[in-house]
C-alpha cells in the first residue's frame, strides 16, 4: 500500500497541472451544450492534448501513443477533472476500440486507425446491439456474406452512441454457419461506406445521444476483419472487458462530484433561512456519499494497480459499485432543489439551469447501468465466473 505519488507520478502530475493551467483558458469557453458545436470545441482540445503528448498515454509509441502505464492515465483523469477540462467525446475510440485494435488488430489496422483517434480526427462508435440482440449479444443477426475480396453486410444495429458523428465503427456480424458465438466476426467499418444509414434516437430527456444504424449491402474488404473470421466473439469479449475497466475506474469522478455537492450545500439555506448543512438527514446522507466515493476511489486504484494482468474480479464489481453510487449522488443533489429538479431541459429558470448538470448525471447513470452489460447481467457474470455458481 503505497499512498503517495511515486517520483515519476509526482513529476508527471506537476507538469500536467502546469500545462492545464496554461492551456485550458485558451479554449473558446463556455463549452457548448449542443452536440455539433461541442464536437468542434472538443476537437480543438484534443488537438492540444495530442500536440503536447497527452493523448494515448497508455498506447504504444510506434502508433502515436506515449507508452506510459495505467497510473499515468489515472493521474491524467484526476487532474483533468480537477482543472475542469472539457467532456470526453471519443470514449469508444480511446477506451475500447483503440485498445482492441492495439491488442488484436493487424499491423495495417494499427497504422491506419490508431493515430486519428489520438488527434481527434476520427470519432468511433460501437455497432454491437441489435433490436433482438441486447443482453443476449451472441444472438445477433446482422449478416456478412463472403464475396470476392471481402464481405457484404446486411442488417440493423441500435442504441449506437455517437454514430451520428463517428468516422468509424467496431462491428459484429454473423459470418459462419456455426452456432451463436462461434460464427461471429469482428469488423472495422468506415461510417461513410455506401449503404450505411444513421437515424437518431432520443433518450428520455429528449437528446439524440444514440442512433439506429441500417447496413444495406455494405461492402467491407477482407482487411477489415479483426482477428479470425468466425473468431470475433473472443475479440468482442476483449472490448467488453476494456469497457468494464473504463467504467469501473473513471467514467465519472465521484470524488469531484461529491466535493461539488458539498460546496453547493455550504451555500444553501432552507425556507426558514437555516443552513441546509445543519439538517441531520442531510449530514448523514452527505457523509454516506463522501464515504462511498472514497471506497470507489480505492476500488479504482486497486483496478489500476493490478492493470498489468487481465481485468480481475475487482473490475467486474467496479461497475456494480459505481452505478448506484452515481444515481444516489445525482438524485440527492436534485432532491435539494425545488420540485427535486424535475424541470425539462427547455425550462430557462435559474433554478433549472443550476440543477441541469445533475439532471443529466442522474439520467446518464441510469443509461450506464444498462449499457455494456446490465446490472443483472453483471451479477450473472460475477456469480458464474468468479464465484463458480452453476449456470441456470
Amino acid at each position, binding site marked *: 500500500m*503505497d499512498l503517495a505519488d511515486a517520483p515519476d507520478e509526482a513529476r508527471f502530475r506537476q507538469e500536467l497541472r502546469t500545462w492545464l493551467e496554461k492551456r485550458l483558458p485558451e479554449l473558446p469557453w463556455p463549452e457548448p451544450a449542443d452536440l455539433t458545436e461541442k464536437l468542434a470545441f472538443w476537437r480543438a482540445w484534443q488537438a492540444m492534448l495530442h500536440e503536447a503528448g497527452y493523448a494515448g498515454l497508455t498506447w504504444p509509441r510506434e502508433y502515436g501513443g506515449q507508452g506510459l502505464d495505467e497510473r499515468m492515465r489515472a493521474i491524467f483523469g484526476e487532474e483533468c477533472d480537477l482543472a475542469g477540462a472539457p467532456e470526453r467525446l471519443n470514449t469508444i475510440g480511446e477506451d475500447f476500440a483503440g485498445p482492441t485494435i492495439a491488442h488484436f488488430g493487424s499491423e495495417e489496422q494499427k497504422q491506419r486507425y490508431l493515430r486519428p483517434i489520438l488527434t481527434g480526427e476520427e470519432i468511433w462508435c460501437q455497432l454491437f446491439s441489435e433490436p433482438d440482440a441486447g443482453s443476449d449479444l451472441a444472438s445477433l443477426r446482422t449478416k456478412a456474406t463472403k464475396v470476392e475480396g471481402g464481405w457484404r453486410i446486411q442488417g440493423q444495429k441500435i442504441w449506437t452512441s455517437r454514430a451520428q458523428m463517428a468516422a468509424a465503427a467496431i462491428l459484429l456480424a454473423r459470418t459462419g454457419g456455426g452456432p451463436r458465438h462461434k460464427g461471429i466476426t469482428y469488423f472495422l467499418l468506415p461510417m461513410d461506406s455506401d449503404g450505411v444509414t444513421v437515424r437518431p434516437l432520443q433518450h428520455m430527456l429528449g437528446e439524440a445521444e444514440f442512433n439506429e444504424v441500417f447496413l444495406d449491402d455494405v461492402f467491407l474488404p477482407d482487411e477489415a476483419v479483426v482477428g479470425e473470421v468466425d473468431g470475433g466473439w473472443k475479440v468482442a469479449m476483449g472490448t467488453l472487458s476494456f469497457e468494464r475497466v473504463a467504467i469501473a475506474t473513471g467514467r465519472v469522478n465521484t470524488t469531484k462530484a461529491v466535493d461539488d455537492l458539498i460546496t453547493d450545500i*455550504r451555500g444553501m439555506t432552507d425556507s426558514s433561512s437555516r*443552513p441546509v448543512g*445543519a439538517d441531520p438527514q442531510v449530514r448523514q446522507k452527505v457523509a*454516506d456519499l463522501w464515504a462511498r466515493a472514497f471506497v470507489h476511489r480505492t*476500488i479504482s486504484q486497486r483496478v489500476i494497480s493490478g492493470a498489468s494482468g487481465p481485468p480481475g474480479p475487482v473490475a467486474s464489481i467496479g461497475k*456494480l459499485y459505481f452505478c448506484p453510487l452515481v444515481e444516489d449522488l445525482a438524485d440527492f443533489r436534485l432532491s435539494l432543489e425545488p420540485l427535486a429538479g424535475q424541470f425539462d431541459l427547455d425550462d430557462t429558470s435559474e433554478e433549472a439551469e443550476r440543477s441541469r448538470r445533475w439532471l443529466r448525471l442522474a439520467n446518464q447513470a441510469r443509461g450506464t447501468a444498462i449499457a455494456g452489460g446490465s446490472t443483472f447481467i453483471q451479477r450473472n457474470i460475477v*456469480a458464474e465466473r468468479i464465484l463458480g*455458481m452453476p449456470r*441456470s
Partner: protein
Amino acid sequence: MRWQLSEEQDAYRETLAGWLADVAPPDVVRRWLDAGDSLSFADRFAGDGWSGVGLPESIGGQGGGLVELALTSELLAHACAPSATWLATVVTASALAAAPAALAVGQGVGNVAAALTGDPLALLSPADDIPGEGPRLAPGAEGRLRGTVRRVLAGGVATRFIAVVDEPDGAAALRLVSAEGVRVVARHLLDRSRSVADVVVDDEASESLDVDASAFLAECAARAAVLTAADTLGAMAKMLDMTVAYSKQRQQFGVPIGSFQAVKHAAATILVEVEAARSAVYYAAASVDAAAPQSDLHAAAVKAQVTAAGSRVADSALTLHGAIGYTWEHDLQLFYKRAKLNESLYGRPAAWNERIASALVLA
C-alpha cells in the same frame, strides 16, 4: 500510488491463516465459545509469538503497522477466534506508540512493552462509543478514581485500564488503573467471540500517563475504526464462502439452489460488498499509519460503510441458508453475530458519519 500488499504482508497473511486453521478450526472454536473461554486462544496466540505483529520494535513489537493489524483482525474474524483481548490491547498499544508524547516519555513506552509480554490493556470506555466520546471519570484527591464505566471491551480480562479523566480545566487526561482493585461485572453478548464487562472503580489509586490525551484518543478512534472494519471484512468473506459452498451443495427442485438467479444475484451482491470493503480497509489502514491527509476520515468511512455492509451481508447469508442457518447448531450464527456486533462496536455508522459531516464543515 500503488494498491498492493507487499510480499511480506502476503506471506504473513498466509502463515497466520495456516496457523489459525491448525489451532482454531471450527470445532475447537465452538468449544471455546460454548465454554466462554477466551483465554485458551489468547494464551496460544501470544505464546506462538503473534501478539507483537503490527506494533513497532521500539516498544518491543515485531514491526509492521496498521495494515498488518488489519490483516490479523480480518483473519481472526474469518476464524471467529475470541479476540476481544487482542483488539482492546492493540488499539491502545498502537495508539500509545503513535501518540508523539509517548515516545518521549519512558512511562508510556514501558507500559506498552509490558502489554506485549502478555498483559492485556484496555481503554476504560464503553465499547459502543467512539474512543474519546465516552463519559470521563472525575479525578479525586491524589489521583484516586471513582466511577462506573459500563460495557468495556475486554473489561473482564484486562489487567490494566487506561482511564480518561476530566482535568480541572475541562481537558482530558489519561490515567493508568490496575484491574486488581476494581470490580468487574461480566455482561453477556450474543457474540461470544468478544466480551464486555461493566467496570466499577471505587476509590482506586491510579498513575498519570504522560501522553497527549487528545492525540492518543484520536489515534485510538482511527485504529479502532479500521480494525473493526477489517474484522467485518473477515466475517463477510467467511459468510460469502459458506453461502456459495452451501448453494452448490443444497438441492431443491432437483437442482442446486445456486443455479437460481435470485440466489446468484444475492451472492454476487455480497461479493461486491466484500471486495469493496477489502479495497477500502487496507487503504484506510495504510492511510492512518502514514498520517496521510484526511486519514481520520478514511477510518471513519470504512467503519461506517463496511460495518453497515457486514450487517446487510449477514442477513442475506442467513436468507440464502434457509432454516439451517437459523439454528444454533450451524456456524453461520457465529459470523452473523460477529458482524452485527461490529456495527455497534466503537460507535455506530451514524456516529461516524456525523464525524465526517463535521469535518467536511457542512455547517
